[in-house]
């Protein structure tokens, strides 16, 4: 009984090591701001640490952490809206810059260039999606989460997740046009 707390702390350390990079990636893709993604990742794990005792394992740790990350992000944007002195400057990187991050495979330079253009276009489209559509799209196509996991993380029903995903995908396809 006396060692329950150190064991819980050890478990939490494992969770941090296992999922920190994924949470950071999701927040980076959502905000396109490295500093902000770092700050929100720290906040996410701080909240997770505070509430770790309440986690009963009904969902996977990643789903639970994603839910916290989504809420932390929502809180951040809500607070920004309320800041009457908010700065107009943003650290968000340009979509072209984000699109440059494409691992060079064995394809030709021309194909690489074409792929970069398409990726930059997808970044642009994702940027203009509604908040929920973007969140669901990133969880599905970047984090490769299943519908049930996305529903668990976002608090939406499976049907709503599918609807958002369908609309987001339809928009990506439509805007990519014949180029995809």
């Amino acid at each position, binding site marked *: 009984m006396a060692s329950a707390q150190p064991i819980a702390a050890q478990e939490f350390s494992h969770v941090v090591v296992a999922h920190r990079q994924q949470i950071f990636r999701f927040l980076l893709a959502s905000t396109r701001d490295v500093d902000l993604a770092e700050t929100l990742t720290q906040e996410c794990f701080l909240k997770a640490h505070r509430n770790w005792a309440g986690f009963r394992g009904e969902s996977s740790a990643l789903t639970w952490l994603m839910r916290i990350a989504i809420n932390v992000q929502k809180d951040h944007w809500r607070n920004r809206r309320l800041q009457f002195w908010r700065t107009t400057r943003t650290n968000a990187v340009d979509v072209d810059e*984000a*699109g440059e991050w494409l691992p060079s495979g064995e394809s030709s330079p021309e194909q690489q260039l074409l792929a970069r253009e398409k990726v930059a276009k997808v970044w642009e489209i994702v940027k203009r999606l509604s908040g929920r559509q973007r969140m669901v799209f990133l969880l599905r196509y970047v984090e490769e989460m299943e519908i049930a996991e996305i529903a668990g993380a976002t608090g939406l029903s499976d049907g709503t997740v*599918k609807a958002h995903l369908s609309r987001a995908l339809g928009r990506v396809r439509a805007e990519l046009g014949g180029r995809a």
Partner: protein
Amino acid sequence: MKSNLTNSNPGKSEKGSARHGFEDAAQDPELEAVLRDFRASVHAWSDATYQSRSETTYRNPSLVHSPAPRRTLWRQSLVWALSLVLTAGIATGGVYEYHQRELARQMAQREAEHQRQLAQQQHAREVDELLAKVDSDVSREVPSAMEPLASLMAEDDTQ
């Protein structure tokens, strides 16, 4: 207890077996290739950023337990300081305003009292002057009223 703690994607084994309607739409190989490139792009960018930052930020796991990021602490301190200054300013302003009003009220009271005393003195002076005037008028009238008698007395003396 918490057996699935580090299972990052427990549903991944189902992938491919249970396709959804919207996923059928994504069966377009070209669209899938674009989405795959997009995913690779995000992963590459995130990994590169994470690796470069891990030297400083993520090396020490205890950072997770730090109370708040430094930026947040700095902002909170600034907000607290501004709030204190604002509260002190409002309180001081209120006290100063009350003091000024109290002084003005006392001065007005004193002025009104002074005016009242002046008015009383003026009134008393006017009454005194009026009485004096009446006295002088009466004293001047009496000799003229007695004058015929005085002349009669003078005639008696001659007889």
